[in-house]
């Protein structure tokens, strides 16, 4: 007699340094589908997980920024290829988290196209925003963009996939590495996204994904002295005030983003990349 086959349930892990560890704290939190059909134990990242992730991000930073823009573009394009191949899995997870079938299809397509969009900027934004400046002296003077380094990203709380990608794609397109905190209530796609990026040969440490509670992680995100910038998605005044105040400790660059920065076509633009770029101007004499 053939019974219903028992499925093997997924363990939802963190993504740190190209590996999938559990939280060093051993803690998890319970996620439940709106229709209560499914549940999962999601890792509840600790401040130590964040610390370890920053170490990995810093370790990967020089070589990621040192790659040619073309190489970064190729890797991002490959991420899109892999995500395209896993459409069904992501749609299913979005639906489990309460999105309608039509909305899920649209969101996954948008997510893939977002990756393609930023892949296409990797070797071009520099052309747009770099300059040769006609100074009033015999010097060749040029301004170029440089990745700011390690970026902490607090992803939108209201979107499990598109919002997360919109938050981190411009960051890594620009040559930064990052540690991102996924939406607390929509954690499933974050884990699958980590698996996707890993499969696409994104170098270890470039993206580190944590699931957990914003309330407890915001402070380490904002105070860590080896993080160069913080990109925060949300509109909670108290959180923003806390983040900006903490960031002052090492003069982190803080960008506060809202829905307009992740939802819809206007969210796709090269200024998103500028959020995490420095500019460097060099002078060199012109003479025999």
């Amino acid at each position, binding site marked *: 007699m053939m019974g219903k086959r028992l499925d093997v349930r997924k363990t939802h892990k963190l993504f740190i340094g190209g590996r999938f560890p559990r939280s060093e704290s051993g803690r998890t939190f319970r996620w439940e589908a709106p229709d209560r059909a499914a549940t999962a134990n999601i890792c509840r990242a600790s401040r130590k997980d964040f610390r370890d992730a920053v170490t990995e991000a810093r370790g990967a930073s020089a070589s990621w920024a040192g790659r040619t823009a073309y190489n970064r573009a*190729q890797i991002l394009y490959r991420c899109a290829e892999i995500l395209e191949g896993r459409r069904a899995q992501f749609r299913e997870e979005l639906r489990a988290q309460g999105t309608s079938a039509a909305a899920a299809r649209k969101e996954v397509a948008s997510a893939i196209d977002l990756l393609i969009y930023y*892949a*296409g900027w*990797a070797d*071009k934004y520099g052309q747009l925003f770099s300059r040769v400046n006609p100074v009033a002296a015999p010097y060749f003077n040029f301004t170029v963009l440089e990745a700011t380094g390690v970026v902490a990203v607090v992803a939108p709380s209201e979107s499990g996939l598109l919002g997360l990608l919109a938050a981190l794609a411009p960051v890594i397109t620009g040559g930064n590495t990052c540690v991102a905190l996924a939406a607390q209530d929509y954690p499933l796609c974050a884990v699958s996204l980590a698996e996707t990026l890993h499969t696409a040969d994104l170098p270890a440490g470039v993206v580190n994904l944590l699931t957990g509670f914003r309330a407890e992680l915001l402070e380490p995100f904002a105070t860590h002295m080896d993080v160069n910038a913080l990109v925060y998605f949300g509109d909670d005044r108290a959180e923003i005030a806390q983040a900006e105040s903490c960031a002052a400790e090492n003069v982190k660059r803080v960008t506060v983003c809202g829905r307009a920065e992740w939802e819809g076509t206007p969210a796709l633009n*090269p200024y998103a990349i500028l959020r995490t770029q420095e500019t460097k101007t060099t002078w*060199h004499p*012109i*003479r*025999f």
Partner: protein
Amino acid sequence: MPAKKPALDFDTEWSYSPAPQSSADVKLRERYKLFIDGEFRPAESGDYIESINPATEETLAQVSEAGAADVDRAVAAAREAYTRSWSRMPTAERGKFIFRIARMIQERARELAVMESMDGGKPIREARDIDIPLAAAHFFYYAGWADKLDYAFPGRSAQPLGVAAQIIPWNFPLLMAAWKLAPALAAGNTLVLKPAETTPLTAMVLAEIVREAGLPPGVVNIVTGGGKTGRLLVRHPDVDKIAFTGSTAVGKEIMRALAGSGKRYTLELGGKAANIIFADAAIDQAVEGIITAIFYNQGHVCCAGSRLFVQESVAAEVIEKLRERMETLIVGDPLDKNTDVGAINSRDQLERIHAYVEIGKQEGGEVYQSSCSLPEKGFWHVPTLFSNVSQSHRVVQEEIFGPVLAVQTFRTVDEVIAKANNTPYGLSGGVWTDKGAKIFKVTRDIRAGVIWANTFNKFDPGSPFGGYKESGMGREGGIEGLLPYVRLRAPRGR
């Protein structure tokens, strides 16, 4: 001063065994047809021309020769595709089509490299390591611009022109096709491409790739043929824009043909670039740069560093090292992975090069040629150096388009800049010096579209390429490469 035998002996007991790249996996068709409106069909006349392998003189395949009716059909298909599908498509989708082409070139890279080498004579190592990867990169680069044109030109919205006619040469067949197709498509145009008569085969594979990538029929059309086909295409009334890479003589012919027509055109023509070595250059690396500048691709490069200027105080050393380095250049079977200098593209071109070498000798130039042996069949030319020549010699003034270098010495920097600019051409130039300030000054004073400092013949899809003066106008690569394919409109209400 007679050329003295090099101090080092490179004719060693240990020599390299043949290392042929297998061509077994490359399945050539007997006949290739025109690619019009998404279909492969023979020319209406039924005419074919032969494409031969310049290394063996054997026929590789026949390709259709497009006549007036075929060119008409191709332009009509491009127009229809522009109006009905390509210009209406969401720009992000256009971009994804172009990404597909890029990816498929990468997937068929080995096959394309071997075919390119067999069809044109260039070494397989160059086709494999430079031509094919760069071609894919051009498509990748421009694919990303398709949905970002609003950012490319501040204060202006960029609209496509319509139908582009594109004519390319035989020295970098697939790469030139990429340089033409990628920006045109990204900007929203449709096109008709005419590959060079002696090198049509990789364009035929590109046609297959375009079709497999699912581009709507008529967006890309490829018509093979000779000069006649090119002329028909250029003069076609329903073409909005012409892009031509080839000789300055034909470029001028095209300008005259288009005069008064209102059609946009860009021309990438010949060159006679000055490659300048200062005494404070890193000499050994500069010598390597000279080799790359003139012997790479058998000298069939419009931007070749064909006029060498060496500062007199280091001239003896540079020339001696140059001669020694020429001795280690391997001339031979393009499909051998160790070949540095392949076959000359055609009998015609070989005869032209021979004629110039004769002229140079008659003009009193002193010839040095490396001691390599040449195969019996096929078209070959030994790497050649002319010294004791000056700006007044024809071999210094005229583009030879072969592995022939003219060497002059100079004393001061203003002298060499004046001489570097003393030419109707203005495509490229090279400067070798360890002093940064000198680089910025010299590159500023040389009138050429591309200047290489401490390197030569470097290309990138993001780096604009094109000439001043009689080397043409318009740029390919970078944002500048989009300009020739768009109409810029000011926003309303200004």
